[in-house]
C-alpha cells in the first residue's frame, strides 16, 4: 500500500515535472502558456516552436528513456547480471553500425534499405555475439559480460569508422551519431517509437514471472519447467528492436538502461508489480532531465545527450561495479 502511494506520488510529480522542464530551452515559456497551448490556444510562432519542436522532443525523449530502461531491466534479470544494459553489452553499437551501413549502402551501393531494419538486424547480431563470447559453462560472469560488450562495441564502432572513411563522409556527423542527440526529432519519430516500446512493455509484462525465476538461477528455472534459452531469445530480440529504433532516431545514448532499473529496485524491490511501470516512468523522466541539461547548459549550443547521460551514469556504474551486489555475484 505504501508503495502504491509512493508510485502515485512519483507519477504525479513526474508528469508536472516533465511539463515544467519543457518550459526551459532557447525559447522560454511559462507554465501557464504551456498549459494553454496544450489546451489548443495558438499564439503564432511561439506555439509553433513548442508544438512542433519542443513537445515531440519531450515525448520522444520519454519514450526512448523508458524503452531503454525497461530493456535494461529485462537484460539484467534474464542474464542474472546487474551490469547488463543495451549500451554496455554492445546492442547499441550494433544498431548504430546498421544505421550507418544503411546510409552507406544508399550512398555507395545505390540501394535503399530501411535504416530501422538494418539497425535491428545488427543489434540482434551483436546481442548474440556478446552472449556467445561471454558464456562460460552455462553462466555469464559479470566481468566477462562487460568485457565482451566492450569488445563487440569496439568492433562495431571500428566498422562504422571504416565505412565513414571509405565513403569519404565527414567525421563530424559520425561524432554526433556516436553521442546521440534529441535535436530536431519530429512527431513521426514518436509514432515510430510508440508501437516498439509498447510491444516491449507488453512482452515483458507477460514473461515477467519467468524472468524473475531466471534471475534466481537458470538451474532453478529449468526445474520449474522454464526454457531459459527461449526466454533469453525473446528478451534479446525485443531489446534489440527497441534499441535499434532508439539509435536510428537519436543516436547512441548509454547508461539509462543501467542505472534506472537499479534505482527502481532500491525503491520498490525486484519482485513487485510496480517495478516495471516505475522503471518505464523513471527512465523516461531521467532522459528528459538529461535532455533539459543538454538543451540549456550551453545554449544556444546543444550538448550531445549521450555525454550528459554518461556523465551521470559512469559514476553510478563504478559504484555498482565496486558494490557488494556485484562482487558477491561475480
Amino acid at each position: 500500500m505504501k508503495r502504491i502511494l509512493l508510485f502515485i506520488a512519483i507519477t504525479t510529480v513526474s508528469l508536472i515535472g516533465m511539463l515544467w522542464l519543457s518550459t526551459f530551452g532557447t525559447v522560454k515559456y511559462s507554465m501557464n502558456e504551456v498549459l494553454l497551448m496544450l489546451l489548443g490556444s495558438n499564439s503564432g510562432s511561439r506555439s509553433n516552436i513548442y508544438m512542433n519542436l519542443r513537445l515531440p522532443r519531450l515525448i520522444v525523449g520519454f519514450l526512448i528513456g523508458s524503452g531503454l530502461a525497461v530493456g535494461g531491466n529485462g537484460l539484467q534479470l534474464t542474464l542474472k547480471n546487474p551490469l547488463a544494459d543495451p549500451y554496455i553489452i554492445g546492442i547499441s553499437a550494433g544498431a548504430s553500425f546498421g544505421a550507418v551501413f544503411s546510409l552507406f549502402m544508399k550512398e555507395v551501393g545505390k540501394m535503399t534499405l530501411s535504416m530501422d531494419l538494418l539497425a535491428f538486424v545488427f543489434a540482434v547480431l551483436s546481442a548474440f555475439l556478446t552472449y556467445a563470447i561471454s558464456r562460460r559453462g552455462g553462466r555469464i560472469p559479470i566481468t566477462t559480460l562487460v568485457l565482451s560488450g566492450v569488445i563487440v562495441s569496439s568492433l562495431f564502432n571500428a566498422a562504422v569508422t571504416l565505412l565513414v572513411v571509405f565513403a569519404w563522409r565527414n567525421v563530424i556527423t559520425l561524432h554526433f551519431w556516436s553521442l546521440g542527440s534529441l535535436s530536431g526529432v519530429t512527431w513521426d519519430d514518436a509514432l515510430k517509437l510508440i508501437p516498439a516500446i509498447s510491444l516491449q512493455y507488453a512482452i515483458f509484462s507477460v514473461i515477467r514471472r519467468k524472468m524473475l525465476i531466471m534471475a534466481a538461477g537458470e538451474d532453478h528455472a529449468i526445474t520449474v519447467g522454464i526454457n531459459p534459452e527461449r526466454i533469453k531469445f525473446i528478451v534479446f530480440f525485443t531489446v534489440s528492436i527497441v534499441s535499434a529504433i532508439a539509435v536510428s532516431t537519436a543516436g547512441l545514448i548509454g547508461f539509462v538502461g543501467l542505472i534506472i532499473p537499479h534505482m527502481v529496485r532500491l525503491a520498490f524491490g525486484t519482485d513487485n508489480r510496480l517495478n516495471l511501470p516505475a522503471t518505464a516512468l523513471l527512465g523516461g523522466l531521467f532522459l528528459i532531465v538529461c535532455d533539459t541539461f543538454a538543451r540549456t547548459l550551453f545554449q544556444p549550443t546543444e550538448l550531445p545527450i549521450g555525454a550528459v547521460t554518461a556523465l551521470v551514469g559512469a559514476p553510478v556504474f563504478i559504484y555498482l561495479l565496486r558494490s557488494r551486489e556485484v562482487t558477491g555475484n561475480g
Partner: protein
Amino acid sequence: MVKFLAKGAIIVKKYLLTLLVILLFSICLSIEMVDDLGRLVSIGGIPERVVVASPAITEYLELLGVSSRIVGVTDWDAFAISNTVDKIGNLVPLNLEKILSLDPDLVLISGGFQEAEVYKLENIGLKAFTINPNSFEDIYRNLMVLGNIFGIPAKGREVATNFRDGVLDIAKNVYNVPQSERPKVMFVMTAGSLSDIWTCGTGSFVNQAIAYAGGANVGAPYSGNNGWFPVSPEFVLNTQPDVILVPYYYEGGQEEAISHVKTYKPFSDVPAVKNGRVYAISDSLTSYANPRFIDLVRTITEHLY
C-alpha cells in the same frame, strides 16, 4: 507655409505610392534558384531576415553589402564579434528552436556534414538554401547566385567579376614560371601533434590557391574528401617541400605554429625547415572557400617570391 506643407504632403503621397509599388513588386517577385545540393528552391521576395548557419557564408553577404539583413550566426562566426546579432549555437546539430524564434525568411547553410540539417529546416517550414563552395569557381558562381537571391544581380556580377580578375591579376605575375622552377609547397594542418597531418590535394581550394600563387603543391597528385586527406610525417620527408605553410588560429599564434614544425626532429633536413621557409597563414583564409580566397593567393605568393 501652408503651401509648403501641402507640397510636402503631396511628395509623401507620391513617395508612398512608389513604396507600395516596390513592396508589391518584391512580394510578387518570386525567383527559383538551384542550390549546391541540386535542390530547386523558390525564393519568394527579397529576404529581409537571414540566418547564416555556417561561418563559411558570411563573407559573401558582407562583400555584397547585404550583411545588415543577417539576424543570426553560429557561435564560430567572426561576424558576431563586431556586430550585434543573435547566436544560434553549433553548426551540427542546428538549434532549430533558436532559428525559428528569430523568424527568418531564409536560412543559408553549407552542404557536407550539414546536409542532414537542410531537411530538418525544411520539415519545420523554413526556407533553406545551400551554399557549399569548394573551389575558386564555386566562389565566383555563388557570389552571383547570392546577388540574384538578394535582388541585386548586377552588383553580384560586378563583385564576382572583380573577384575573379583580382585573383587572375596576381596569378598572371607567376603563370609562366616553369614547373621545375616552382617551389615545392606543402600545406601542413595538424590536430595537435605532427604525427597526424592533414594536407590538401586536387579538389581543394587551397591547392588551387597554391597553383595560382606559383607554387607546386606536393599534395596535388592526391585527393580526398573535398580534396583533403591525412598523411604521416613520412610523406613530408618523402616529398621534401621547399616551403611549408601552416595555419594559425589566433592573432599572435604565428610563432607557435611555425616552431611546432621547425622543432620537430625528423623534419630537420627538410629544405623548408633547413632554409627557414615555414610560414604561418591565418586559418580564416584556409578554413573556408570564400571571397577572401584572393587574400589567400596574395599571401602565398608573397611568401613564395
